[in-house]
């Protein structure tokens, strides 16, 4: 009885209700979350976060955090939940809990044309090939998994890895669509997306501190509902397939 | 002038009493079995070759260093490392250093008033009045608002003397007060010291200025290798010294 009580009163849901605000940790990552021309946050995560807060009847506060420190920051209580396109991996799961996935984004390879001419998928798995990716992001895990032979360089953010490929310092990088296709369109002489197929990780989910079944249950059900009503898919398509938002964010 | 002053004061109370004092720096013995007694109003000059322990002795008198054996009693206060009276003692004993050690960030006036104001808790107006009085005494009243760096060495040393005087101490120690000065400035300072000697203050002075010693000292102490080798009146000291070493020393000092 008392254990149950203390569990539920210790839940982050409880403190969110008390404070009247939910603090969401996120890291800038196109097109999940971005700064628009006004310097304000926009993106898929922002829609999700606002909707979530609306449904809970509280205010929302987004805490932009560098990707590197996002999990320690969650663990030490700098915010209540991470909603930042974080995909579920077993390693992460050892440290934090995940909700059910709320998005499944496909990832594609973006490669340097001259350096990877005529490469098949197997050719990438060679010690001569260099990949670049964002440290701690899903593509890094996928690359390590799919191309164990290749060298993998990790950077603080996505732009840097694309620039590496562009400058010929790396053969290829991988990230969620639509970013690779956009880049390929912008630098048609140098960059291209060699394979149409998208590589899949376990899906992206909310991350929360361990030992909080109430919150997990709440988020799972919220995601379940929003998936069934099609709201999540509609927003996902808007940000990941559509072009409407492009001119609000500098291109 | 000298005569009557001296003999009168010699009968007064003993101001400095040093008995069987030893002092070590690590293994090196800087003072061995030093005895010295100075009466109120007496003027003592200490001389001796470099490294003989003159500075060490004088610094032991106001507790800038502490002796390891024997006893030192100054103005009735025993000088010891953890004495409660150390502060009182230092207020009674003025010291003038070879390097002046004026406070460069304070004006001359502030140099003179900071001790009385902060240590003796005297009001500012009163302290300044006193400071100007003593600046007058050392003949530089017009320098009150300058900073030490703007003064010549001789003037700085005179300020240092005035600073000690402002504490109205009855004992003054001088450690080679003129040896950092240019030849022309030495006299300025010596003149002030001669005047001071006539006021009845108790004075212990390390110096090689033999002219000064001859003029004002009641007794001259000659040190060598941490010991007091000879103590004599100026007359005897210069005309008929006992020890060979002193003769040699005088020969060298007075030669050129």
């Amino acid at each position, binding site marked *: 009885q008392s254990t149950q009580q203390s569990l539920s009163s210790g839940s982050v849901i409880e403190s969110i209700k008390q404070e009247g605000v939910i603090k969401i940790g996120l890291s800038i990552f196109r097109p999940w979350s971005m700064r628009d021309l006004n310097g304000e946050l926009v993106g898929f995560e922002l829609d999700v976060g606002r909707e979530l807060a609306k449904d809970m009847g509280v205010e929302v506060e987004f805490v932009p955090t560098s990707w*590197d*420190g996002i*999990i*320690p920051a969650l*663990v*030490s*209580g700098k915010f209540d939940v991470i909603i930042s396109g974080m995909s579920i991996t077993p*390693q*992460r799961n*050892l*440290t*934090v809990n995940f909700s059910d996935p709320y998005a499944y984004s496909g990832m594609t390879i973006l490669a340097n044309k001259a350096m990877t001419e005529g490469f098949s998928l197997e050719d990438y798995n060679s010690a001569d090939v260099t990949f*670049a990716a964002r*440290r*701690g992001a899903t593509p*890094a895990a996928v690359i390590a998994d799919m191309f164990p032979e290749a060298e993998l*360089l*990790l*950077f*603080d953010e996505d732009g*840097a890895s694309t*620039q590496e490929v562009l*400058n010929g*310092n790396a053969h290829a990088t991988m990230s969620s669509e639509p970013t690779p296709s956009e880049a390929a369109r912008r630098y048609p002489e140098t960059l291209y997306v060699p394979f149409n197929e998208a590589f899949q990780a376990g899906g992206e989910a909310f991350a929360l*501190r*361990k*030992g909080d079944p109430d919150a997990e249950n709440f988020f799972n059900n919220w995601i379940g509902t929003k998936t069934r009503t099609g709201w999540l898919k509609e927003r996902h398509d808007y940000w990941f397939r559509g072009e409407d938002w492009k001119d609000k964010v500098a291109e | 002038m000298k005569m009557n002053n001296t003999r009168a004061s010699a009968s007064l109370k003993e101001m400095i009493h040093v008995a069987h004092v*030893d002092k*070590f720096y690590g293994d090196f*013995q800087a003072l061995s079995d030093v005895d010295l007694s100075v009466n109120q109003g007496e003027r003592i000059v200490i001389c001796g070759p470099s490294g003989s322990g003159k500075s060490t002795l004088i610094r032991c008198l106001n507790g800038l260093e502490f002796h*390891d*054996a024997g006893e030192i009693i100054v103005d009735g206060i025993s000088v*010891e*490392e*953890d004495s409660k009276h150390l502060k009182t003692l230092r207020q009674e004993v003025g010291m003038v250093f070879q390097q002046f050690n004026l406070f460069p960030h304070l004006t001359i006036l502030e140099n003179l008033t900071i001790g009385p104001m902060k240590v003796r808790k005297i009001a500012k107006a009163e302290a300044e009045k006193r400071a100007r009085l003593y600046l007058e005494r050392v003949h530089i009243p017009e320098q009150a608002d300058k900073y030490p760096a703007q003064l010549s060495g001789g003037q700085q040393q005179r300020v240092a003397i005035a600073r000690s005087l402002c504490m109205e101490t009855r004992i003054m120690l001088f450690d080679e007060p003129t040896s950092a000065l240019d030849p022309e400035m030495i006299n300025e300072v010596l003149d002030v010291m001669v005047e001071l000697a006539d006021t009845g203050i108790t004075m212990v002075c390390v110096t090689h200025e033999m002219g000064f010693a001859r003029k004002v000292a009641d007794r001259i102490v000659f040190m060598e290798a941490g010991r007091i080798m000879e103590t004599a009146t100026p007359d005897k000291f210069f005309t008929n010294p006992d020890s060979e070493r002193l003769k040699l020393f005088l020969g060298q000092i007075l030669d050129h």
Partner: protein
Amino acid sequence: MSTRAKPLTLKKVLNSVPVSFAIYAFVMWLIIYGAYAGAQAMGYNWQWYRMPQYFYTLTDDGFQLGEIMIGLGKTIQLSLTAFALATIFGLFIALLRLSDLVIGRGLSIALLEFLRNMPLLVLLYLFYYVLGPVFSLDRYTASVLCLAVFHAALISEIFRAGINAIPKGQWEGATSIGMSKGQAYRYIILPQSIRFMLPPMTGEVVHLIKSSAIVSVIAVAELTTIGRNLISDTYMSFEIWFTIAAVYMVVTLLLSIGVSQVEKRYAVQT
């Protein structure tokens, strides 16, 4: 020597060596315990037992160095290369700065001002993303050069201070026996200024090792990069950050101690 027994006072007791050590140990224990309790309160599960494998492993192939040790090796290699270059650049800049060359002095001052007023992180981005492609530098060369140039500015100031610390009389002494400026530098000034430069130089090596951590942002393999990669793999942030900090501390402290020994020997010699 006969020393009088002096009475014990509270101040003396507090200042005595054993009591001081005891107080010190107590305060340190408080701090460490506080940190531990703080982390505990945060609900963090410590996993220190997973750390040793990153230092070494004992497998069938025998003893193998773990990733952290490899990273440490890389850090040292990187730092030493950069330091050697920085010393050469630094001497060059300092001599230019002290020279009579009008343009040379102007150039060295401009360079110093630029470097002094630029965060290293930003400088590194400039070297890697801007100068890198221009001069076709790979990431390793770019980071070595960036560190070398950045520290050359600091080292040149050490050289300058060391040279200026030599009393003017030494220059005059050298001049008055007919030495040229070059000879005076070579035989009189530089040999003496080494004594003044050694302590700040040690500081500079330590500083360089520390700033080398920044190259992790362009993915050059070294200790911090390895640490950050491990964190992104395992999420044991606290354990790994503490370990990395400890490794850096051991290296830099050893270095400081080593150099102060050398210094002592050097001091005795002259």
